[in-house]
Structure formats: C-alpha cells, structure tokens
C-alpha cells in the first residue's frame, strides 16, 4: 500500500515492527523479502520522493559541496524517488570475488567480517531480483564462437578471463511497485524523508518524516533500517552523532570516512590480435562482458588491488611499424593486430582522508548539507600501473602483441578523475567498532535496533559494480531480521 504524505493530513503517529528509510534497491529488497518471510510483521517504508522523478527543488535536498581533489557531483549520481538510483542505473552486475572479502594488509585492504561462501545463497537470490538468469561468471561456459574471441589464458599464473552479466536493467520502482502496492503488511510512505530522530542509549525509538509539502508524521519502530544510498545514509548517521547519541558505531573513527568510488583508468594501449572482444556483447544466454583480471595468486603475491580490464577498439595514431607484429621469428602468433585502449576498473583502497562531513549550511528541510572530500589514494595509480605493465609483458610473452604505457598519476589525471556513482565505504562492516560502523549483521555498533543497508557498509570494494552485492546483503539482512524476531 502507498500513502502519499504530500496528499494531506495523516494521523500524526505510526507504529511498526520494521521501519525502512529509503526505497532504492536496498530498501525495497529488505521490505519485500522480510514481508515474504514474516508476513505478520508490520513494515513501513519511508521514501523521500514520490513515484515520479523528483523536482529540482527536491533534488536540491541532495546538494552539497565537493571539496576533494577532483570534482564530484552530489546530485546527479543519485536519484530521489521510489526505486532510488535504479531509475537510471546501467545494470552492470557481478558479485565480488572471494579474494575481495579477505583482508590483505600489504595491499591496504581491510577485508570483510564475512566471507563469500556466506553470501553465496544471497547472491543467487540477487540474480533473481535483478532479472539475471545466469549466475555463471566463468567464460568457459560461453559458446565456442565467443570463446575464440578471448585471449587464451589457460594455465597463466598472472591473468584470467571473467565475465560481467547485465540486468535489463531492472528499475526497482517500476518492477516492484505493484508488489508493494498489493502487500498487506507493507505501507510505503511517499514524500516522507527522515528528518529527525529520537533515541535512548541503545535504541532508535522514533523517526519523524516529512517533506517540502510541510506534512510530518512520527513513526515509532522496533527496528530501523537506513537504506538511503551510500552518501545519504552516512549523512543521517552523522546527524545522529551530532545529536549526541553515544552509540559506539556512531562514534567510530570510521564513520563517514573512507568514502570510495570506482574511477575509470586508461593505463595504455595494446596492439593485439584482431577481433578480441572484451566489451559488452550478446551471448546465447544474454548479454555478457568478458573482462581480464589478475589471478588471485597474482593479487596476493604482488599485493595488487583487484582490477578488471576491458578493451576498446581504438583509432591509434601511434602503432608499431606495419608488419612488425606478424613475424613468427619474433614470437608473434601472426595475423592482423588491432589497437585497443585498455579501460581498467581498479578496486580503490579505503582512503581515510576521503570523507563526508556535515556542513554548516542547511537544506530546505533544515538538515545540514554534506561536504564531500573525495580523494584517491596515490597508491591506487601505482597498483594500476603495475598490473597493466605486467599485462603488457604477458601479452608479449604469449606472442599476442605489444603494449604501450600511458602515464597514469599525473596532475591532470587526478584532477579529472571521475567516479561511477558507486558510493561506498562510509559505514563499514567490521568485527569491532574501532574498525567500522556496523557489525556482521549490519547493525550499528552499540545499538539494539539500527541497521544499515547499501554500499555504505562495504569495508572493501573489489572492482565489481556494487548493486548486485547491495541486493545480496539486503536479502541477507531480511533473513537476519526475520530470524531474530520483532524486537
């Protein structure tokens, strides 16, 4: 059932077993999964926006300052209406690799308090939520015609082929609207942004929601899940901290620190066998994108951050002399060679200087705006360079072509680095409050009833786009919430 707060006066107070703040992929998945598993629970979803994309004035509630080393748009990288940012996401999907969950200190990677096998059944469910029929990411299962277009890395100690899959992309606001509408146990409040909180030492008791329309109601909830996206969730946790709530998670040194996004890198050009496909393409089971990634062994031995590479056929002014790459005496396998620009997505390190803060300015609802200081750790560039350099050696050793390096860590590149709207790491999951904000069950340390869903909780990030993991974690959270009862 939907209730639009903007439509007029409503009874001032509500009570529920579970209150979910935000109806993006995370919030909708938690709501519907919990309702399916525990139909007796009374669930309220409070969504800041309506059913249609928000007005400029509403989007302005997301505005803030970006003061990091490269510019970052706070308002175009997220949407504010039912379905959240899935209203215009691209649908690239891939679970994190097993190694992404493991702490690797040498590479500056924190690791997760849970491992991938613990998430596997939830990843499988996430595929259904995201309308991806195939959960096999091994390119060996591709039809021979496509496999022929990949580099044969069999037995290679450094690199391997992997796949991305694609969601149609599922628009959560469209696809799951009727399920929410028809649910007996879920009430979704629209135009109902959380604006203030009442707490005791360990419990969040009441949340007041409202909007530019001026209506407000207060909801008393047994348990609350914050699912407002990776920036907004951190903003609201900072608000609770600012109000003086002493809960350990809210006072963790990690809160709103280590903000990360996947940023694009172009480490160089390859002159490589013709007709290799490492871009989105059609396969017999739907769209896929083959990628090249370092092997887990190489990641460990070289202390590299995880990364994937795509190849884009490119007009290259600068090629090796014609004919050169055809000579078998020089070890080349022969055939035409094309130029490809390498696009790399690197697992960013958690950079403690990269952070969100509350500003002294307020928005039209009276909430402090945010200030983002997005900073890429310089070691990210080194890792990318080292991976690509080794890759050019392997391409050469295998007789496939040659690689040309481009300078990566230049002032210009730093200034023009651009993220991909993956807001991660601001409320990290950890074993202890010293290392993070939420525990392995996504509960804020030191609280009894406050949870966070979304990519804010990622303690390290892999190179995969986050939504598949966000939905898997939301599915897991729903299982936890139902298994642990209503209080």
């Amino acid at each position: 059932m939907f209730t639009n707060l903007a439509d007029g006066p409503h009874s001032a107070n509500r009570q529920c077993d579970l209150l979910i703040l935000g109806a993006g992929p995370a919030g909708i998945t938690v709501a519907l999964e919990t309702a399916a598993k525990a139909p007796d629970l009374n669930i309220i979803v409070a969504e800041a926006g309506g059913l249609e994309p928000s007005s400029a004035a509403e989007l302005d509630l997301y505005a803030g300052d970006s003061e990091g080393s490269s510019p970052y748009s706070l308002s175009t990288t997220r949407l504010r209406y039912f379905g959240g940012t899935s209203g215009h996401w691209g649908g690239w999907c891939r679970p994190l690799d097993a190694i992404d969950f493991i702490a690797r200190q040498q590479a500056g990677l924190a690791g997760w308090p849970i491992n991938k096998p613990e998430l596997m059944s939830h990843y499988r469910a996430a595929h259904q939520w995201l309308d991806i029929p195939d959960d096999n990411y091994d390119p060996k299962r591709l039809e021979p015609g496509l496999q022929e277009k990949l580099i044969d890395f069999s037995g290679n100690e450094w690199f391997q082929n992997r796949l991305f899959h694609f969601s149609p992309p599922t628009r959560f606001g469209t696809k799951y609207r009727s399920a929410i509408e028809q649910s007996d146990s879920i009430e979704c409040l629209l135009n109902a942004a959380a604006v203030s909180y009442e707490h005791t030492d360990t419990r969040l008791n009441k949340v007041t929601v409202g909007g530019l329309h001026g209506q407000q109601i207060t909801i008393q909830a047994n348990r609350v899940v914050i699912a407002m996206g990776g920036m907004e969730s951190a903003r609201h946790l900072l608000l609770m901290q600012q109000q003086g709530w002493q809960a350990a998670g809210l006072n963790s040194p990690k809160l709103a620190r280590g903000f990360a996004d996947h940023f694009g890198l172009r480490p160089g050009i390859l002159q490589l066998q013709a007709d290799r496909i490492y871009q989105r393409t059609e396969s017999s089971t739907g769209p896929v994108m083959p990628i090249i990634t370092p092997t887990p062994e190489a990641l460990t031995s070289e202390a590299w951050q995880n990364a994937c590479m795509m190849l884009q056929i490119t007009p290259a002014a600068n090629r090796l002399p014609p004919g050169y790459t055809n000579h078998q005496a020089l070890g080349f396998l022969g055939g035409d060679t094309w130029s490809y620009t390498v696009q790399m997505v690197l697992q960013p390190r958690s950079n403690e200087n990269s952070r969100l803060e509350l500003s002294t300015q307020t928005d039209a609802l009276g909430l402090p705006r945010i200030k983002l200081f997005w900073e890429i750790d310089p070691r990210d560039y080194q890792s990318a360079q080292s991976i690509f350099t080794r890759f050019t050696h392997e391409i050469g050793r295998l007789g496939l072509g040659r690689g040309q390096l481009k300078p990566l860590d230049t002032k210009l590149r730093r200034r023009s680095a651009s993220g991909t709207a993956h807001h991660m790491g601001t409320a990290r999951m950890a074993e202890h409050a010293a290392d993070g904000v939420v525990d392995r069950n996504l509960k804020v340390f030191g609280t009894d009833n406050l949870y966070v869903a979304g990519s804010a909780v990622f303690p390290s990030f892999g190179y995969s786009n986050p939504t598949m993991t966000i939905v898997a974690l939301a599915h897991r959270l729903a299982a936890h919430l139902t298994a642990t009862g209503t209080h």
Partner: protein
Amino acid sequence: MSNPGRRQFIRYTSGGIAGAALLAGGWWKWTSMQQPMMHASGLGADADQLLAALGGAGVLGEWIIVEHPDYDQPIVDLTQQLRSRLQLPADGPVPAAQFSEQLQQSIQQDFAAAALLAVQNWQLTRTEALVAVLRFKTAGVSAGAIAQAPIEQQIVKIANWGPRTTTAGTLPNSFGEGFSALWFDADNAPRWAQIEINNRRLFTTYRENRVLVASFQGQREFQQQLFSQPGEYPITLHDDMSNSWQHVGNFVVTEAAANELETTVAAENPAFCKVKNWGSRQTTAGVAKHPQKDGSMGVWIDIDCAPADTRLSVNEQSFKTHSSNGVITSNIPPEMFQQPGELSLSLVSESAGTQLEIGVLVIQPN
C-alpha cells in the same frame, strides 16, 4: 644509414594514421620483394636473410636509436651481444631455424624476467631491440620500395563517385553491419580493379560491369580511425596485373563541431530556448523508431529557438539537424542503437559555443 626514403617514412609515422597507413602500403610492397642485403650481420647468410625479412623491424630499430643512443653501435658489437643473448656460438653462421627458435625463446624469457626497453612507451624486450637495431643497420628500412613501385597511369575513366565527405565521427554511407562503402561509376574497369583509401585496400566488388563498390567490411578499426580524424585521404584505383594505379580523388573528413567545442552546459542557455518536449526516448536494440530510408532513426526536439548551425550530439558524435516550425529533427545512424544501453542527447552550436542537454535515449534489449 643512407636510405633516402627513411626520413620521410619516419616523418609519416609520427604524423598519425595517414603516415601509418602510407607506411603500411609501402612496407608491404617492400617486404614482399625480398631486397638484397646492404651489410652482412656476421651471423651468416641464413640469418641475414631472416633479418632482412623482418619487415617493420628496421623502422623500429631507428626509433630505438633515436630514443636510446647507446644502441647506436657498430654491427659487429650488436651481433656479438645478440649471440650472447641467444646463447649462440661466438662465431660461425647460424642456421635460420636455430636463429628463429632462439630468438623466440629469448624474447619470451625477456618478457618473463622484465628485461625490457621502453620505446615510445611501447614495452619491448632487450632481445628484440637488439634485433631491430641490427636489422636497421644491416638492411635499412625501406630500400627498393620506391624503385619497384607501381606506375601511375590512367586505368579507366571514372564518371562519378561518392560519398566524398563526412564529419569526423560519422560513418558515411554505412550499411547493416556498420561498414561504410564508397561507389565508383567506372565503365569497363578491369574486373580485378581494387580501390585503396589512404593506401589501404578496401574490399572491392564490381557490379553489372559498371559500378565498383569498395567496402570497409572486415576493417572496422581502420574505418573508425579514418573517419574519426579530420583530413583529406587519397583514393586510388589499382590494377595489379599491369602494376599500375590511378588517383581518383580525395575523401574529406571535416571537423566534428561538438568534439572540438569548449562547451558550456547551463540550465539557462543563452543560445537555446528550453526544450519543450522530445522523442523518441526509448527504443529496442536494433529497432529504429521513426525509421529513415537508410535505416537510421529519426529524433525530434520541440524547441522554440536554436542557432542556425545547431547539430545533434549523441554520445559525443555530432549529426546534422533540420529545423522547421519550431521542431528540430535529426537522424541517429543504426550502428549507434544496435546494443542495449543509453545515448545521451544534446544540441550543440559551434557559433554560440554552447551545448544544451536534452536527455537520455534508452535502448532496451530486444
């Protein structure tokens, strides 16, 4: 070192695709001609022949010397170093098979051990660098290419041909799979006549004894390179039987306005009125909504005012527009909506130096 053609070739290479393609044509011809050696390497006749056949290595050799002058050594020293790298006996002739095998192995080992040299930032092995410099010192880079070149003469009269121009980033006359094709009205041309553009052979067929059709089929990368860089590219017709060629004309790629502009994106744009409406906003991969004769997809933008030179920019490629009664129309070529995804549309005016964002055209999977 005294090869008259060499400097010119090097200049061409650094000049980008035009040069690279020219080099491609010239080099291919030379290597297939088996030129005599200029100097012996000291590795024996077999190995010398193999060295001579390493087309492209000579050019690379010269690049290396320019960037790493320490490689500019007498042939005898280079040969000695190569022998030791390849673990060959210190003197005596080396059989070609052994030379080739050891070379391959040594290059592989160099890559594994990162025994490398950066040349124009290319990651090359120390072994191949030695070979390339040796190849350059013994056989130069392009001897004989000019002497044996085909003769320029009129082969056939070409009454008309087209298309003759495009804007950078736009494929001219492109068909189903996204390959451009040029046509030539040439009565009685030899059946085996072939068209080259910028010294690169196109797939040429002869229809009804009258029209030659030269397609970029199978050369997607070259096609992309050529049509993305403004310039004039010579078109020639070739008759290999009589080793002759004739100049047909120049294909002109003009600047793409949108790519070059210092654009300003503003909500209130002084040059454009507000977009009132536009469409289509959605299509299915491979399906042209508002299909045009050439398979492209028509889009319309309802806007009260826009500069006369307004173009439609689609994912940073720009296209011509027509304007009538406050509606601007333009066509998006089929290759841009074959795959599911999103195209971001904006209007661009070079004269006003501004860009107005329209929105995103979503291509759903089929």
